[in-house]
């Protein structure tokens, strides 16, 4: 399949089941809600080393938030419920509780409830106050700028992690520009995050390494500087490859995100140095969710 001069490989991205939750951070204004959200989702690019994958889903208008202030929806994904709960609580405690004017609310109704502010309340040292409003429990924790208001729990649901596609370009700036265009469009899709910095990964990995201590190492088949010294998957004109990784609440959410992302890349087309779209495929061993590129773009 070729779209606007860009070859779509007949391959698929492999993804795996994860657990996910969403939280809503509000603040006095969007600037501080975003600061808190960025802190909370920082160092959360890959479960391999971070314990979770997290990202900002979207900015919320005051009409969309529980307390009528500007807000940001963030999502966190982890391999299991315990890990997710731990990451959520740790990050909320360090990045939202501490952030000026912030409040924290559940972003997913239903699913299994996991603690959001339920244990953060103990920061109040006995001065915390519980309020049940509209059937939901909230905690008012006295802090130096006033009160930190937080919902006790949020919902945890089954989700899909690791959806991806690779952008193969003639130069590094062209690959980056294409990925930026893709991310711009993919951000408009609900229920997905692209957890890597700016949504783009330059260090796509393969499973395993020559070093026993490492479980993953550089994807040499897609490293352009190794074209002559390894079993490469790149043609001579490819100088740069970048990846976009997507976590979503459902397979369909990732389908949609991949479709608009790949389309945005293809819109730039071969004229802008974009030659191929491929995907992280590990022979079907990584996970049960397969995203066939050509089917998605059909």
């Amino acid at each position, binding site marked *: 399949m070729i779209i606007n001069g860009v070859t779509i490989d007949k391959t698929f991205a492999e993804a795996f089941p994860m657990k996910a939750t969403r939280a809503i951070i509000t603040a006095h204004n969007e600037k501080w809600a975003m600061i808190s959200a960025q802190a909370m989702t920082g160092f959360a690019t890959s479960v391999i080393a971070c314990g979770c994958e997290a990202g900002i889903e979207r900015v919320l208008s005051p009409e969309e938030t*529980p*307390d009528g202030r500007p807000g940001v929806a963030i999502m966190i994904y982890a391999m299991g419920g315990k890990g997710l709960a731990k990451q959520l609580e740790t990050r909320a405690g360090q990045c939202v509780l501490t952030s000026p004017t912030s409040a924290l609310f559940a972003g997913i109704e239903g699913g299994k409830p996991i603690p959001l502010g339920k244990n953060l309340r103990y920061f109040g040292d006995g001065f915390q106050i519980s309020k049940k*409003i509209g059937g939901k429990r909230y905690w008012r924790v006295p802090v130096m700028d*006033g*009160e930190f208001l937080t919902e006790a729990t949020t919902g945890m649901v089954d989700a899909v992690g690791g959806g991806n596609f690779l952008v193969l370009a003639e130069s590094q700036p062209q690959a980056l520009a294409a990925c930026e265009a893709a991310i711009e469009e993919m951000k408009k899709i609900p229920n997905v995050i692209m957890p890597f910095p700016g949504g783009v990964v330059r260090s796509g990995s393969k499973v395993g390494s020559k070093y026993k201590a490492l479980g993953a190492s550089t994807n040499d088949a897609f490293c352009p500087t190794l074209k002559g010294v390894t079993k490469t998957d790149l043609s001579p004109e490819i100088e740069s490859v970048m990846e976009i990784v997507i976590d979503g609440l459902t397979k369909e959410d990732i389908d949609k995100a991949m479709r608009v992302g790949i389309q945005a890349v293809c819109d730039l087309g071969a004229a802008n140095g974009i030659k191929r779209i491929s995907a992280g495929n590990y022979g079907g061993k990584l996970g049960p969710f397969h995203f066939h590129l050509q089917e998605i773009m059909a």
Partner: protein
Amino acid sequence: MTTLTFTLIAPPAQRVDMSPLVCQNLEGLDLDTIAAIELQCGKRKLRVDQLFYINGSNTQDILIADSTDKLDFIGKELNGGSISVQGNAGAYLGMQMKAGTINVSGDAGLYAACEMKNGLIQIEGDAGDFLGGALPGNRQGMKGGTVLVKGNVGQRAGDHMRRGQILIEGNAGDYCGSRMVAGTIAVMGTVGRYAGYAMRRGTLLLWNQPQLSATFNDCGSHTLAFLPMFFASFKSLNSKFADTSAAFNRVRRYGGDMAETGRGEILVRI
């Protein structure tokens, strides 16, 4: 199905225990069976049809018409469905209620909503002492649900209250929120003396500055984020509390009762 209506034949001479006439007890019963239920009236037991004309069929939607303040225990342990009281209700309205709604067009007597667990009670008129309180000797009053009183309430509203909310459009008597363990009492009118007496936790939300006991300490003026959410949750009520103009988030906070644990608060609109 039409509303199951109990119309009082004549005002009873003695107090009547209405606790058997709740939706969950009447479910599936025909009118003859309901008519044969015996109610304690003073020291006698009277059949329902000796006290009431009965018509209608929906046991989950009950109307008590021409009610008087001699009818006690209306909606006791109600566990779903609705009871409307046309007129006044006696003591112990909605006592230990678990779910459902009770509407009273007139006044309610002592101990309305006492030890209530959940549901909604709306009283168009006044309510007596110990609204949402604990029965004498018990340590826990209202444990959940919402009580709305459009008129005034007597003394000791929310005594030993543990959870839930009491919304009072009118005035509250002395000792409002006494011995509260938690929960929220909101009073749009005035409160009497000794508000929050011996409260351990919980919130008294007041529209007018009360005369506070020496055991409440001024914590200053604050903008509290939970208040707009609190008011927003009342949007569906037929009440001044549902009016957006009633909402506020700026209050003066008084902590107390310092003679107790001091974790309670009286918030006064500013």
